[in-house]
């Protein structure tokens, strides 16, 4: 299982919306956080989210130890099983 947590604030809603467009990805909640999960990799396109850079590079709130970030640049955020 791959997962990441993103705080539910207005600047981050596009991240959850874009993540949920992938049928292999589930977006749930834990408290005020989006819990974004998949059995495999999770890839989120930055431009599709509409996030400006300051928001994009600070959007990940938590990453379980069985997941790792393999890409986090101006194009995309990619999380894969560790």
């Amino acid at each position, binding site marked *: 299982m791959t997962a990441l947590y993103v705080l539910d*604030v207005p600047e981050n809603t596009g991240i959850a919306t874009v993540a949920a467009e992938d049928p292999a990805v589930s977006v749930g909640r834990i408290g*005020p956080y989006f819990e974004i999960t998949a059995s495999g990799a999770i890839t989120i396109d930055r431009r599709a989210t509409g996030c400006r850079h300051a928001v994009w590079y600070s959007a990940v*709130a*938590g990453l379980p*130890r069985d997941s790792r970030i393999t890409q986090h640049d101006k194009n995309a955020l990619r999380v894969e099983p560790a």
Partner: protein
Amino acid sequence: MTSLDHRVKGVDHAAFPTFDPAGTVHFYRDVLGFPVVHSICAVGWGPEDHPDFIHFFFDIGDGDRIAFFYYFGAEAFNQTGRGDAYAGFGPEVPLYFIRSRHLAIHVDSYEDLMEYRRRLDASRWPVEMQIQHETIESIYTHDPNGYLVEITRAMRPVTPAEDLDANLTIDALLDVVAEPGPSLAKLLARKAELIVERAAQWELAPAGDEGRP
């Protein structure tokens, strides 16, 4: 979180040395329009080598103040060409570090931010950067002493959820820096554990109790 009651009332004054009192007064009083609200002229006393000095204050809003020391007869100590009136840095120190220390002054609206932008842009100290950060928008310039000054406005109010998140971040940080080789990846892993432990309950927490486990 702390259980101690919170009694302080903001910034009384933040003080900096200056070797350019004319530029300093021109920048803060005449360009930005910050009123002079206090000054002390004193002969050097205490340590024998203490020069005569003047300590002068500008109002930065809500009664908060920025203050300067000007020491008569003293020459600037920083001759490195990098840094500011307080500190110099060699070429081994990266710019991101030199630029990290700054004073940010709050305004209430975009219109107020742009008013200060107009004042600065018409002066010898024009705005160097205007940036939308995560939830604030800021303009920056360096004052005549080389101090980085930011003026900033909130683009929206901070939510209670962000206070919770900040507290989880700091608790995760304390755990991570207690171990060798702290890193952002280790912090995010520890924070994920804290989110699972604490965040689910948080929605059930009564108002005013945000962030408590």
